[in-house]
């Protein structure tokens, strides 16, 4: 703990910080690159849509000694369609037959049972009409759309429209990356995947909201000081909540990792695996985007406001002056104190401008 705790402390006091906002162009670039890759992947390779989207049947058998190749042959014969067979962790087989009519399933199942020398009652069947997956997907898109509109409205009210826009961009970014990874790696897309993807909605915003909340709090009195620009404070916010972001992400990922491990390793395939896989990818993307994309984006948008432009001018002027007067010259990162202090700094002009002293922070705050 102590190391991370120390890191937290040092981040908190601004002794160390990473200039997320200042280096945003790099991260924007990286994100754009990833997004383009994702889109190209989607366009070129397309998504590997599961049986739910084509219609067909999935049979899961209990433990059996029949080999995969043999089962494939049996299944193709029984159904008259190409079959894909996977061996499961339980020793059973998962037999996928695409394009099969739901009406023919019972006969196929019976025949398969005979071939595999199993009791038909022991075979699990999942039959899907061709439009079922489409319906799920359409509903999901609908939900996605409604959610985005609502969340933008909510964030615009709770915070402000710029943050809402940034959060939305981050959200789209996450979803694009996740689907892109699905396209590139060739993971199968199932209704479970869509569930996972939709959950990312809420979750990816969770981190973003935490950072925005801190940002909002810290920038409340921003115009009453001249020490820090909006970008500076935004950067502080990210750094200040970095430990929290890391922790929340890790803690969110751990149970999903558990799911993935069990779903993938133990069951081999199925709902658990599908949900957790897309969640895992999406959560990771979400954590990244809330830190590297959303907040810098807010800063970018904010800096366009005349008020903030004026502030920046004042701050830069003051910094130049301070630099002339004082060799110490605070770099931006050094200036990472409390905005509260910053606000205080206006009231209490005796406060030394940006200096190492900020590191010790509090005293100046109390001097008002």
């Amino acid at each position, binding site marked *: 703990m102590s190391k991370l705790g120390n890191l937290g402390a040092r981040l908190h006091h601004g002794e160390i910080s990473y200039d997320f906002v200042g280096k945003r162009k790099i991260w924007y670039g990286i994100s754009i690159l990833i997004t383009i890759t994702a889109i190209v992947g989607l366009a070129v390779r397309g998504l590997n849509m599961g049986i739910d989207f084509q219609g067909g049947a999935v049979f899961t058998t209990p433990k059996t000694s029949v080999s995969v190749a043999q089962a494939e042959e049996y299944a193709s014969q029984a159904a008259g369609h190409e079959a894909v067979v996977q061996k499961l962790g*339980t020793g059973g087989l998962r037999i996928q037959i695409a394009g099969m009519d739901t009406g023919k*399933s019972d006969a196929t199942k019976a025949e398969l049972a005979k071939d595999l020398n199993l009791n038909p009652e022991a075979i699990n069947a999942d039959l899907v009409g061709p439009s079922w997956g489409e319906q799920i997907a359409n509903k999901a898109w609908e939900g996605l759309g409604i959610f985005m509109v609502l969340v933008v409205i909510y964030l615009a009210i709770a915070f402000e429209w710029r943050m809402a826009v940034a959060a939305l961009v981050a959200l789209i970014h996450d979803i694009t990356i996740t689907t892109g990874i699905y396209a590139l790696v060739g993971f199968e897309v199932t209704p479970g995947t869509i569930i996972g993807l939709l959950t990312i909605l809420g979750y990816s915003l969770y981190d973003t909201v935490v950072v925005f909340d801190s940002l909002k709090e810290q920038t409340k009195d921003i115009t009453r000081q001249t020490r820090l620009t909006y970008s500076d404070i935004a950067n502080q916010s990210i750094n200040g909540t970095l430990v929290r972001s890391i922790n929340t992400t890790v803690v969110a990922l751990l149970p999903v990792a558990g799911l993935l491990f069990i779903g993938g390793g*133990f069951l081999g395939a199925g*709902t*658990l695996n599908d949900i957790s896989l897309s969640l895992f990818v999406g959560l990771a993307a979400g954590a990244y985007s809330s830190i590297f994309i959303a907040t810098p984006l807010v800063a970018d948008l904010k800096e366009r406001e005349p008020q903030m432009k004026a502030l920046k001018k004042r701050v830069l002027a003051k910094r130049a002056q301070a630099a002339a007067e004082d060799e110490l010259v605070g770099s931006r990162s050094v200036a990472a104190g409390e905005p509260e202090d910053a606000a205080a700094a206006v009231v209490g002009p005796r406060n030394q401008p940006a200096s190492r002293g900020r590191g010790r922070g509090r005293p100046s705050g109390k001097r008002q």
Partner: protein
Amino acid sequence: MAAPKRGRSASAQSKPGRSLAFILIAIVALTGGMFASGHTTPRLGIDLAGGTSITLQAKADQGSAINKANMDTAVDIMNRRVNGLGVSEAEVQTQGTSNIIVNIPKGTNSEEARQQVGTTAKLYFRPVLASEPSTPAGQSPSPSPTSSPSGSPSPSGSPTASGEKASSSSASPSASATTQGRAVTDALKADSNPSPSATPSTSASATPSAPASDGTDGGTAALQAAYTKLNCAKASERATAGQNAKPGEPTVACGQINKVWYKYLLGPSAVDGTEVKKAQAVYDTQTAAGWQVQMNFTSSGAKKFADITGQLAQKQQPQNEFGIVLDGEVVSSPYVSQSITGGQAEISGSFTQEEAQSLANVLSYGALPLSFKEQSVTTVTAALGGEQLHAGLLAGAIGLALVVVYLVIYYRGLSLVAMASLVTSAILTYVLMSLLGPAIGFALNLPAVCGAIVAIGITADSFIVFFERIRDEIRQGRSLRPAVERAWPRARRTILVSDFVSFLAAAVLFIVTVGKVQGFAFTLGLTTVLDVVVVFFFTKPLMTILARRKFFAQGHKWSGLDPKSLGAKPPLRRTRRPAGPAAGSVDPKEA
């Protein structure tokens, strides 16, 4: 870190015990309720318990709109059919706007269920051999003449005549007990443009003409006995009367006319419901006869209908009636006064508009007001269900263990608070899930388990937000008690805002989506709400109380709040004073 002014809520701090007591009482009450209700485990979904789940989607191509009323009727009818198979635990529910989910627990003949559910028409026109009202009193075995099934014109006749001749025993299981008031009908007459031609009944054999051929074997007596014994005033008897009757054989059935239950002895089906091309409710403006139902038959249906009406018209009451039998229940029994040819007929009587439309619906679409298409059928054996449940629980345990380990490593003593809160949250979730099973039909399926596991993260995140805030305050040199009180309002806002976003996502998903997504969204929403409850009424008060303990207050090395390892500023001694209020007033004093 602005706004220290509205930092504390003194009340929350001063009465932490009350909140804890409140949540404790809530837990005890809910748990008590759970045991009292006898549902001590969450109801398991088909994918965990084994069974068959069928998803049907309504098709809008039959001219009848997919609306709530139609969907509800369909659910009602399917419920009757499925539960008629002998299992009472099958459940039918709508999902979204156009889907119906039929869940059939393991041990049922799922193939038969599939056939039953999807079938649109289970409607037959059967000639009435005998009918009489069942008095609510109980057995009224004596077949004595009584008033006609149809309220008005046709005085019903003595059932005696026909009874003896029917054949085949048919009383069989199944079917619901739903009472549905259905239209009374009386006269069935030729349509306005009848071609009063003869078309004399050529196929005498096939058509019933009740007595006829088959009356000799033992089935006759059995059926007659069943008819005599039948008391349609009893819901339990209605439920089983005449179910699974084969169309080609006579049967008994019940029907409600003008709120009175009648029992019927019916001949073999004369015309199948599928042979009705179209039926609609119309208001007869010319003769002021009120609401009527017009039927159009297919060409083969028209012929059969002409035959049967020709035969019936020559008979006495009630044998000149035919029963319109829907899923084993007589919904209407109009009498016939003449042979109706031309494939068009209308049923008139003292219908209300609703009754007429309802009857027209039944005639047009058989039982179901809409036609349905099978979207997915999932059959899960009990073995796989158990396996999946096992895997889900195992995944949950692993996830929980990982989170706990992480929390212990990172937060040490504080993790006790987090774990206690997680346990509280878990108990509440479990109890509520168990209670929601019987209450709203919530069934725990695999995606729901998944949602619950993911929720561990969401819940733990709230504690992290709170803890990190407290640590921030400590880093600023505050002692624990003021730190807790100052950290809370800010953490609270963050938690509320982010939980709201989570909840919003869950709610939208729940409302908009279908299938497995819904179960997932429901759990996620539920746990998000519980997260807020637990953080407000448990974690925070507990933290306030623990902040008074030496172990935490003095920042023991293992408390997770050691100012030194947190890198706090040199302690501002003077801030260590009566917690809350002091924290805010420190600054001015020290200035």
